[in-house]
């Protein structure tokens, strides 16, 4: 083989014309989609995109580095509270505020990563879970953070008011475009991270930490780095989330949310960026749209309402949301352990050989 190869091909963002074409088409579709969407659906899309950012970041930690994390709602909260407080208390413009908040979140991620060096599996799960709960309670008991009453997000001014540059985003549509741009950037950063030296080191640690060490990878550094990076993503997402909701309190960032984040990554397929995007989309849709109004689903809805009325408390119907989510997760793990990404690979293979 003396064919001169262009090694850039291997690391290009878009490895082929086909991928480039579909990527452009997909992004273009996302830019024109709002023309056809109601405000409610824009809100839902905004939520989806915020979750995509969290899931893509969490995937770097859980999927690529192989460390479990059950406290990401905590980092999400740090991003949300940090961004809002930096804007309202310190008067920082939006962009520096969200980036600084994300770095604060990353710093906490780094700190949490330190004990993770000695903990594995269930022990790490418990440590991260405790962290998430601690953040929730600290926020809930601190005046500065609005205590249990919560915080209201300020006007979303993405200009710099100090310089007389005001660009206020008031509508769901405006938020949609802002979040879309953030999401595209964060996804591209994640893809690049996983394709280069640090990303390979993460995978190395997951597959064989002993081999990773003897090729010169500093386990301490890269394990904590994975925590910091994924917390940074959650921080950015949290900063955006604050404005999607407009108002939030400590309970917004509860343990269930941390679990849901993990479910998104697992359902999408561990280790795959595209899988995380798909997982976040599916789970957000299920949780916040389809199953939220489970009582309105034809036939089944009525049955569930009757069941809930008979056997559960008045708020019981909401629990079906989580039960259904659990069923989806169990189903995926039984039938497609590689998640949606695995299913996609199989479908692609199938069509390649179809109809033979």
């Amino acid at each position: 083989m003396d064919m001169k190869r262009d090694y850039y091909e291997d690391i290009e963002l878009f490895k082929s014309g086909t991928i480039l074409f579909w990527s452009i088409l997909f992004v273009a579709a996302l830019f024109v989609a709002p023309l056809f969407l109601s405000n409610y659906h824009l809100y839902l899309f905004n939520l989806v995109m915020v979750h995509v950012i969290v899931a893509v970041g969490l995937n770097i930690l859980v999927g690529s580095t192989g460390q479990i994390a059950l406290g990401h709602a905590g980092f999400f909260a740090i991003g949300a509270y940090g961004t809002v407080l930096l804007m309202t208390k310190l008067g920082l413009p939006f962009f520096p505020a969200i980036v600084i908040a994300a770095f604060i979140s990353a710093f906490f991620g780094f700190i949490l990563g330190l004990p993770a060096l000695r903990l594995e599996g269930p022990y790490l799960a418990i440590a991260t879970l405790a962290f998430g709960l601690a953040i929730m309670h600290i926020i809930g008991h601190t005046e500065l953070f609005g205590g249990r009453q919560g915080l209201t997000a300020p006007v979303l001014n993405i200009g710099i008011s100090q310089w007389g540059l005001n660009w206020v985003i008031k509508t769901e549509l405006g938020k949609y475009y802002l979040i879309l741009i953030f999401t595209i950037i964060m996804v591209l950063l994640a893809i690049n991270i996983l394709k280069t030296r640090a990303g390979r080191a993460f995978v190395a640690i997951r597959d064989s930490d002993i081999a990773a060490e003897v090729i010169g990878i500093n386990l301490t550094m890269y394990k904590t780095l994975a925590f910091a990076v994924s917390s940074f993503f959650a921080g950015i997402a949290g900063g955006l989330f604050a404005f999607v909701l407009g108002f939030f309190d400590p309970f917004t960032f509860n343990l269930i949310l941390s679990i849901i984040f993990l479910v998104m990554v697992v359902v999408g397929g561990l280790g795959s960026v595209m899988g995380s995007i798909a997982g976040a989309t599916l789970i957000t849709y299920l949780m916040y749209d389809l199953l939220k109004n489970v009582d309105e689903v034809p036939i089944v809805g009525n049955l569930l309402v009757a069941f809930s009325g008979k056997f559960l408390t008045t708020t019981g119907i909401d629990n079906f949301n989580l039960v259904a989510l659990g069923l989806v997760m169990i189903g995926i793990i039984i039938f497609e352990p590689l998640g949606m990404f695995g299913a996609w690979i199989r479908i692609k293979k199938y069509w390649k050989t179809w109809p033979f």
Partner: protein
Amino acid sequence: MAYFSVENLSISFGGLKAVNDISFGVEQNEIFSIIGPNGSGKTTIFNLISGIYRPDAGAVILDGKNLVGKTPDRIAKTGIARTFQNIELFANATVMDNLMLGRHINMKTGIFGGAFMFGKRSPAAREEIHHREKVEQIIDFLELQSVRDQFVGSLAYGKRKLVEVGRALALEPKIMLLDEPSAGMNTEEKDDLTIWIKDIREDYKVTILLIEHDMNMIMGISDRVFAMNQGQKITMGAPQEVQRHPEVIKAYLGEEAIN
């Protein structure tokens, strides 16, 4: 003084003296083999050298510096690469990525540089391309082209052993520790490997420490052989000499008598 040496190295596990006062010196560019029956402490010596175990006593000296107490990643950075008897590859990464990981210490791109790899001229992309070229040379050298983009977990045993050698080579080490590289290979693969190990010494200027059970291979490529049993040295010298040594014969026959 020798280029690389271990001096009075000892470690016990519980009451078992797995490595008991072992010393030897290796010259630059030598192929130095360690032989001994199963459980005699060969792999443990490698684990001590590469920092996976910390010796109870003794020193590991490269270029006049003692490596004992350094973590495995620091030892890798001083120029010691190794393979494992039971293969420790990154199973869910491709052959290419495994070898690129071997170049980790020769690269600089950090998390930010990597994240912002936009365009062919970005520093990260330029470094990436440069090192991919280097890895491609190793892929050509070890004839791994056909499996270049396959996941390592799906490869045949012999191929995986080879990828591990390639990964060690990718570090551009001064010293390479090969732990039974030919185990599980067929005769043809063994012959190729023998030639490649010689080439690694000649062309890449690497000093090689080799643990092997295959006597043909040992006789064919070693400059010197170190024989041990039950954690202790039996003898050290030219391959033929060691092979004829009565204690060595006894150690091996003893083993065969048991088997």
